[in-house]
């Protein structure tokens, strides 16, 4: 529905918009189509095309079968889903609380804010990080993938800025009515910031889903490895089988395996998006926000 205040755009303007968005979308769709097609292509398709395939003439799911053989991948997906869900929930809770607390002038607000900003600039080394994780007894535990990533400074700053824009009068009146800080956060701040919380949640989820390096360092038990670790090793697999194992039935072409890997990594997180979409409605805080 076109809002009443929006006049119908001129054809020229309409055309420019279509070209920009259409061109951008096309530049993305074609390569992605190549990725999906190649993952489904037969060995012959790939050899004929000299590498990447735009449209497979003999589609096959062999690459996916290889990927999921042995049960390693199924388990890894469970691990990744767990880490992503639990990690995002914890990270959001921690970040929202801290961002809200520091968005108002309060005791310790400044030093805590400085503490967070500092993490943007410096990074702990690999070795000390490992020692800390070990000291807390988190080695070989999935919590080693979750806890160190529970507060992202960038996400914190973004949330805090949005919270700061919630007018103080709203909170004051709630406080006069006897609401606690926690209540204010839940009943006023969070509903008003749905869109940005959805975005930050997505940022966290993507971070947890894509992380692989911590798993390499902290998890020795391969049955606890998340998807990304397995995927990366498949991507590198190419021709890793030594001559001794030549008896093995030949693997699918490396390209199709690699592209299948990409698709497997892509699909779950792309599926999340539609659920976030509904938080993107304009004008939630009608009449509440200063221009």
């Amino acid at each position, binding site marked *: 529905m076109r809002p009443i205040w929006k006049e119908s755009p001129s054809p020229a303007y309409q055309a420019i918009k279509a070209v920009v968005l259409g061109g951008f979308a096309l530049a993305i769709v074609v390569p992605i189509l190549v990725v999906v097609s190649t993952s489904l292509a037969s060995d012959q398709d*790939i*050899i004929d095309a*000299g*590498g990447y395939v735009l449209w497979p003439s003999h589609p096959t799911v062999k690459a996916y079968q290889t990927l999921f*053989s*042995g*049960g*390693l991948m199924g388990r890894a997906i469970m691990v990744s889903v767990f880490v992503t869900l639990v990690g995002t929930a914890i990270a959001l809770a921690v970040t929202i609380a801290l961002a809200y607390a520091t968005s108002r002038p309060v005791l310790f607000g400044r030093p805590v804010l400085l503490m967070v900003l500092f993490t943007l600039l410096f990074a702990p080394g*690999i*070795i000390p990080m*490992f*020692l800390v994780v*070990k000291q807390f007894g988190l080695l070989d535990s999935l919590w080693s993938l979750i806890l160190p990533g529970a507060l992202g400074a960038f996400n914190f700053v973004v949330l805090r800025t949005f919270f700061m824009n919630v007018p103080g009068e709203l909170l004051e009146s709630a406080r006069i009515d006897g609401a606690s800080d926690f209540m204010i956060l839940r009943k006023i701040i969070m509903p008003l910031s749905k869109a940005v919380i959805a975005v930050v949640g997505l940022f966290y989820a993507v971070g947890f889903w894509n992380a692989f*390096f911590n798993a*390499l*360092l902290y998890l*020795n*038990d*391969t*049955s606890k*490895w998340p998807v990304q*670790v*397995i995927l*990366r*090793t*498949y*991507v*590198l*697999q*190419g*021709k*890793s*089988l*030594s*001559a*001794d*194992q*030549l*008896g*093995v*039935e*030949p*693997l699918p*072409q*490396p*390209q199709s395996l*690699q592209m299948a890997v990409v698709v497997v990594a892509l699909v779950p997180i792309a599926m999340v998006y539609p659920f976030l979409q509904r938080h993107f409605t304009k004008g939630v805080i009608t009449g509440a926000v200063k221009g």
Partner: protein
Amino acid sequence: MINRRRFLQVSGAAVVAGSTLAGCGDGGTAGGGAKASGDLKLPTYKPFAGLQPDLPGAESGLEPGFLRFPANATASVKAPPLKNAVTALTETFATPPPPMGSNPMWQALNQALGAELKLTIGTDPGYPEKFATLLASDSLPDLMWLPPNQGIPNIGPMLEAKFQDLTKYLSGDAVLEYPNLAALKPASWRTAVVNGKIWGAPIPSTPFGQVMMGNPRTWEKVGGLQSANAEEFFAKCKELSNGTNYALEPAIINMLHMFGEWFGAPNGWRVNADRSLTHLYETENYRAAVEYAAKLWAAKVFYPDLNLADATPKTVNGQIAAQVVVGPRATADFRALDPTLFVDTLIPFGHDGKAKPVYDMGYGTVGFTPFKQTDEGRIRELLALMDYLSAPFGTKEYLQKNFGVEGQQYQLDAQKNPVLTKAGTQQAPGLVSALTIMTSPESVIFNPAFPDDTRKIHATEQKLLEFAMRNPTAGTYSDTSSKVGPKLTAAFRDTIVDIVTGRQKIGAYDEALKRWKSGGGDKMRGEFAAVLPAGVPVTGS
């Protein structure tokens, strides 16, 4: 597909890039402690007697060939080696295996070993980080594979501080208690000697270095890959390159290595008559090879994307005519993609058709596996484990380690060769890769489905050996080389690639050489020359 491994290989210490396993073979950092090694008695060499190869091996490095898997594999170990569980850090270059709990092949191996072998399996990239974190955390596993080329510096003091000196258990005849370790060659053992002490069992790999391989169907049009001189090769390359197909894989440094052989460049260092050393980069021969490569580049015979990571499929389908791989056995990589294809291996030739070419042998091992410091009983137990896992080709233990249990992970084909079953292809590759990178017997040539390949490879190896040259500093140690060698090499190579691809003029060569020398090259020369073993011959004699 570009993968990071390639970049690590090109820029790290390794001269070798290509097949992943052998790609780790040619390292600069593992030291030999030459000062003290004069006093050290290497383990007595006693080849495995139980088995006669179809094609004999030789001291020169020639690998024995087997046309089929020996019937009735013999046992090389008397009793299961373990009483207690063992932990080990290793790396897999295949997909990680299903974990022990759901991997019957792993469980069967544990059964045969007598106790659990708990592997911490690193992957690439990330192994140096994993190694360093474990080292710093003070909870070392019993065994830790020490790769020769992944940037682990100061090996000497590190070994002294954290690992077990095994000299008294392995030196001289002491090794005979572990027959499979005694069957490892002295040349391999030299890898595991640092500061005049033995720190672990070495992990042999093919002793051959890089070779150029070409698809015969492509080269047929120009009279074959073999050429008489550099001009002829240039002309053939030009004819094969037409804007969609190209003659050469764009791995400049590796290709340059091949050209250098035709121009008579030394393997790493040249030993002069007065026993002083000249580095490869300082020779006119290598410089000439760089100019030749630049000429080829200008003629557009290299595949135009420098970023190409795996050229093998392109060589198979003819888009690229030739590429550089490690060792003549790599023909199998091409067979794996196209069972009807046996690629041709280029035998080096003199650049002008008259001069004698050289062929650079490789390092021959992929490092060694040191033990955590412990007591004698445990040391003996771990040595027995290494003995089991180093069992030669054709033994029961070899079968158990590489193929699992008959009827479960493998079955015998019509020629009685072991072939992995469906279950085997899931359980084996990741596990076998992790095991063979930390323990290995001496290498053999074996192509189960293609016995003829084995014959041809064996013949190729003999031809290459006629021109074979070894790095005179192999097995000796230079502090400077261990510390800054990889960095200097990387910087120099960056300039060479710039020259070959036309981004810089050949004049930049001298500038880069000057920086290499003052940055540590001259110091390395001094250190290597001081410990040059008397047995190393003057180059070219």
